[in-house]
């Protein structure tokens, strides 16, 4: 589905992503596990083609097509979208309108804005007419962001720290939404630094120092992350003896 080949990104003279290789499979939930500052959100920005993250070396192949030079809109119309870690707020734009926007270019979208809100645990009557502005709490805004991605029924959903800033009682909704994506055939790239969330994935990759160190079973990758990446004992190379039968890039 998505292949990142030898991605290099330098920002302000600093190497942020280095020889990064990653492959996701259609319909899987694929966690990207990494500590703060290891390049997780940068990776998401590169895949989506955000401004400032377009000047990369390497290739992004999506469903067999090289999309490295496509705009954000072109990528979105091919089915790639993202739920931001800190979603933007829009004065005067109602939640219902925001959820509908993504459906214009998503012929496969079938859930109504009302259904999408219910999926993320928000009561439609209380939210559809509200603006996507600063009157929403951080948690509400993040759940609406998830709902808007759900409304698009994308082929690839990048969820950047979808679990952060959400109260403990609502995490179950987030986890269930992630599973709903997968059931609907959407591939999920789940960016997180929470091991427990990463472990709901089918596969996981550990990102450290701007490169993928290990890909494979989420529990094994989480263990690897716990033992080697949380304190960032190494930057770009896995510790000796950590090579396993799982696919390892870099």
């Amino acid at each position, binding site marked *: 589905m998505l292949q990142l080949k030898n991605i290099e990104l330098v920002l302000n003279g600093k190497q942020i992503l280095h020889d990064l290789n990653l492959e996701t499979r259609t319909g899987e939930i694929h966690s990207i596990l990494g500590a703060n500052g290891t390049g997780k959100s940068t990776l998401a920005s590169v895949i989506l083609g955000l401004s400032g993250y377009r000047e990369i070396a390497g290739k992004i192949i999506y469903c067999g097509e090289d999309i490295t030079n496509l705009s954000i809109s072109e990528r979105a119309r091919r089915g790639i979208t993202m739920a*931001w870690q800190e979603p933007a707020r829009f004065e005067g734009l109602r939640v219902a309108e925001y959820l509908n926007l993504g459906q214009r270019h998503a012929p496969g979208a079938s859930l109504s804005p009302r259904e999408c809100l219910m999926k993320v645990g928000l009561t439609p009557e209380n939210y559809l007419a509200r603006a996507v502005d600063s009157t929403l709490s951080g948690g509400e805004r993040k759940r609406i962001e998830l709902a808007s991605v759900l409304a698009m029924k994308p082929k690839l959903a990048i969820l950047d720290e979808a679990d952060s800033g959400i109260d403990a009682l609502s995490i179950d909704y987030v986890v269930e939404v992630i599973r709903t994506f997968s059931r609907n055939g959407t591939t999920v790239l789940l960016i997180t630094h929470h091991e427990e969330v990463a472990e709901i994935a089918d596969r996981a990759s550990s990102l450290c120092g701007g490169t993928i160190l290990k890909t494979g079973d989420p529990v094994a990758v989480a263990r690897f992350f716990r033992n080697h990446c949380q304190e960032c004992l190494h930057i770009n190379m896995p510790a000796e003896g950590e090579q396993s039968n799982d696919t390892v890039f870099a």
Partner: protein
Amino acid sequence: MIQFSHEFEALAKAYEASGGDASALLDKESASLVVSHNKILAKNEIAGVHIEGGETPTGAKAKITVEPGTLIKKPVHLCFGVIPKEGIQEIISQFDIGEGSRVTFLAHCSFPNAVKVKHTMDARIYVGKRAEMTYSETHYHGEFGGTEVLPIVKMIVDEGGSLKNEFKLVHGTVGCLRIDYEADVRKDAVCEIDAKAYGKKDDRISVKESLFLNGENARGLAKSRIVSADRCQSEVIGEAVGNAPFARGHVDCVEIIKGKEARASAIPRLVVIDDCAKLTHEAAIGSVDKKQVETLMARGLTEDEAIDVVVKGMLR
């Protein structure tokens, strides 16, 4: 069957184009005043709302009184406009909102064919003690940009009263817009002034909003949302004066420029006279926020579509 003058029909049509419901101008249960150029075409009073109107050589005078203690269920409709290409319309108005009353005004000003039109509004608003007033004015202009719009409004919000004053000019090309609003906000009173404008071509937009928080615990918000496209130039002066204990005021200005030749400036002015007053301001000027645009592009919109959504939302 009611016979309408051609002028009334033309104004009603423009009224609808600006978002108004023209049938409300004929509703006998809604107070209303319709002024075309310097002619009062229609006037309707209801229980609790009195309208005294008079024509002048260059416009009209109107005194609107809401009796104390009355709650006006349906909005009072005001319709002003100049249909020909040229003309002057000077409106001198006075609003006297009685103690404890509640009323909403919907005003629409239409200049669909203006090539050389001057429209001035010299208004005095008095909101009585514990009264609530909302005044919402929407403008509709053609594409010739030949209008000079000069609203000058002096407001007094008396003890415990509430006034929300909204001005919106987002349809068509105005030419020149100079807003000058000034509010005297008294003890426990609340005043919100909100101006929204979309300037295009060679428009000149100037907004001055002043809040004088003169009473203890007075609250005020001066808000402006301006978009300057093409070669439009805009300037916003947001002023708040904290002149009493525990007065709170906020000046909130956002100006977006679209196009390399557009210009925008913002000047906040906060003056604290009482040491228990507190004033704040925020201003953002520049292009549309990149993150907002990219978020919408990630939903499949083109960059232009995304900017349009952001701007329309802000000016709503």
